[in-house]
C-alpha cells in the first residue's frame, strides 16, 4: 500500500501553547482523508505543516514521498492548498487570479488563460470571470480559491475547512466539486468541523482534539462507535420526561441525556423509532415532539472523550496561539 501523505508524531508549539501534541496520520493515494475536530483542535496547524508553510517543532511528514521540511520545494510542486480564509486577491478579477497562479507555476500566458477559462467554467464562475473578486459572494470566493489551488493540477490537495461559513446550497455545490476531484485520482486531505461533511466526503476519518488524534477509522466505524443518529423525545408533560428517558434508554441500550425536558439518546438502528413510539404510548407518555437526527460533532466528541467540544475555550486557545505566534 502506498501513501500520499504520511505524518509521524507531529508536534508544534507556539511559545507555551502546544498546538499539536504528536499527530500521526496516513492518507492512501487517491483517497479523501477527513480530519474532524472543533475549533482550536490543531487542524489548521497540521495542514500548514503538511503544506510546507510552517515547520514542525518535532516529528516528520512525507507528502508525495518527500519530506515537508528538507524537500519542501518538491512538495510544493505536488500540492494545492485552499485555506480557511479564501486566498484570492480581491482587487484582481477571477481570470487574473487564476492566470497569476498559472504564470507563477511557469505555465505560458496563453495556456494559463485557457486553463483559467476552463476552471472558471467548471466552477460556474464564467459570468463573473471579468469582475474583481471583491464583488464575489462568499461561496463564489471559495470556489475561486479552490480553482486557484487546482491550476497546477496538484496530485495532493489540502482543503482546510472549505465550507465553514457557507450557506447549505454553496456547501452542497462545493461537496460535488470535491467528489469530482477524487474521480480524477487526486488525494485530498479535508479538515472540517462538521461530522456530516466528513461522512459525505471522506473515505477515512481521523478525529483530533487538543492536538491529538483521538479516533481513527471509516465513517461507519466511527458511527458504530458513537451512534450515528440521535433520537429526541419531548413529552408534553415535563414531569414524564424521566419515564421517557428510561424507556428510550432501555431501547437504545445507551445513557439518555435529559436537558430542559428534552430526552436525547444515540441510536445506531433507525428502526427503533416506531418501537419507541409504541412503548411510549403503552406507558401513557404523551409525546409532544419526536425526531431522529444525525449526531452532531459535539455528540461524537462526548461519546469519544466524555467531554463536550467546549468550543469557546478551544477558540480562546487558538486565539492565544495566534497572538503568541504574532508577538513572540
Amino acid at each position, binding site marked *: *500500500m*502506498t*501513501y*500520499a501523505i*504520511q505524518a509521524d508524531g507531529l508536534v508544534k508549539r507556539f511559545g507555551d501553547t502546544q498546538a499539536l501534541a504528536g499527530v500521526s496520520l496516513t492518507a492512501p*493515494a487517491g483517497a479523501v482523508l477527513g480530519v474532524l475536530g472543533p475549533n482550536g483542535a490543531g487542524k489548521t496547524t497540521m495542514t*500548514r505543516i503538511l*503544506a*510546507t*508553510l*510552517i515547520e514542525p517543532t518535532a516529528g516528520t511528514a*512525507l507528502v*508525495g*514521498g518527500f519530506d515537508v521540511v528538507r524537500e519542501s*520545494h*518538491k512538495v*510544493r*510542486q*505536488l*500540492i*494545492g*492548498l485552499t*485555506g*480557511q*480564509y*479564501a*486566498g*484570492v*486577491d*480581491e*482587487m*484582481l*478579477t477571477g481570470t*487574473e487570479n487564476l492566470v*497569476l*497562479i498559472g*504564470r*507563477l*507555476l*511557469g505555465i505560458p500566458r496563453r495556456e494559463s488563460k485557457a486553463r483559467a477559462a476552463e476552471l472558471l467554467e467548471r466552477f460556474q464562475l464564467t459570468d463573473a470571470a471579468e469582475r*474583481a473578486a471583491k464583488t464575489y459572494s462568499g461561496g463564489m470566493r471559495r470556489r475561486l*480559491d479552490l480553482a*486557484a*489551488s487546482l491550476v*497546477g493540477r496538484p*496530485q*495532493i490537495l489540502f482543503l482546510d475547512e472549505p465550507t465553514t461559513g457557507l450557506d447549505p446550497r454553496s456547501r452542497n455545490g462545493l461537496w460535488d466539486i470535491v467528489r469530482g476531484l477524487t474521480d480524477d485520482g487526486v488525494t485530498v486531505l479535508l479538515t472540517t468541523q462538521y461530522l456530516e461533511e466528513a461522512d459525505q466526503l471522506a473515505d477515512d476519518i481521523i478525529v483530533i482534539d487538543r492536538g491529538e488524534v483521538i479516533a481513527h477509522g471509516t465513517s461507519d466505524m466511527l458511527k458504530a462507535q458513537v451512534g450515528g443518529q440521535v433520537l429526541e423525545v419531548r413529552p408534553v408533560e415535563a414531569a414524564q420526561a424521566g419515564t421517557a428517558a428510561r424507556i428510550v434508554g432501555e431501547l437504545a441500550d445507551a445513557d439518555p441525556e435529559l436537558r430542559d425536558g428534552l430526552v436525547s439518546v444515540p441510536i445506531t438502528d433507525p428502526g427503533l423509532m416506531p418501537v419507541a413510539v409504541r412503548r411510549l404510548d403503552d406507558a401513557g407518555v404523551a409525546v409532544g415532539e419526536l425526531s431522529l437526527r444525525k449526531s452532531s460533532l459535539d455528540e461524537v466528541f462526548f461519546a469519544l472523550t466524555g467531554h463536550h467540544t467546549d468550543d469557546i475555550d478551544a477558540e480562546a486557545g487558538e486565539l492565544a496561539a495566534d497572538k503568541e*505566534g*504574532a*508577538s*513572540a
Partner: protein
Amino acid sequence: MTAATFAPGELSKRVSPGTAARNVLTLAWRNLVQIKHNPMELVDLSIQPIMFVLLFAYVFGPAMKGSVEAYLPIVIPGIIAQNALFAGMSTGFGLNTDIAKGVFDRFRSLPIARSAPLAGRIIADTAKQAWSMAILLAVGFAIGFRLGTNVLALLTAFVLLLTFAVLFSWTSVYIAMKVNEPEKVQIFGFVVIFPLSFLSTAFIPNTDGIPEWLAFCMDNSPVTQLVTAMRGLLVGGPVLEHALIALAWGVGIALVFAPLSLRAFKKRA
C-alpha cells in the same frame, strides 16, 4: 509499506535564478494591474502630494521666504522626500493585507522563489513612488518651480529617492510583521513618519533659532541629509556628501529591519 512517490523525475530541486526573476516580475505585475481596476488608487497617490505642495507653498511660502516662488526651491524637494516616506508605508500595508487575507499563504504554498512575494511588491511600490515624485514635480513646475540643474541631475534625484525609499520601506515591512491589522501599519507609520519628516529641514531653509540640541538632531537626521541632496540635484548645491550620508542611513535601517522582519515573520507563520 512505503510512501508513494510522484513523478520523481520531473520535479526540480530548487528555484533557478531565471525562474526567481520571472516570479518577481509576475508578482510585481499583480500589484500594478490592480491600478487598472481601481484607478482611484492613482488619484490617491496623487491627491495628497498635490494638496501638500499647494498648502505649504501658498500658506507658509510668503511668511517663510517672502513669496511663494522663493519658497518653492525649499519646499518641493522637502515634500518629495516626506511623501516618499509616507508612500513607503504602503509596502507594509499591502504585505499585511496579503497575510491577513490568506493570499500570502497561497503564494508560499507554490514552488516559487521565497523572496518573490516581497520583492515583487517592492518593485511595484517603487514604480508607484516614481509616479508620485513625477506628479509632485509637475505640480511644482505648474506653480513656478524651476529645475536649477540639468536632466542628468534630475534622473539622479529619482534614483537617489527611490533607493532611499526601498531601503527605508523595511521599517514598514517590520511593522507589517508585528501588527494584526493593515490599518495599524498606517497608524504606526503616521506616528513615526510625521515627526521624522518635520524634525528635519524638509520645510525650512535652516535650523537657525531652534534650541541647540534639537537643531543638532535635525541637522543630522536622515531626512535632512536626503532633502539637502535632493535640493542639490534639483535646485543646485552640495550633493555627494549628503547623498552618501542619506544612503548610509538607509543601508543601516535596512540592515537592522530586514533581519528583524525575517525573524518576526518566522515567529508569526
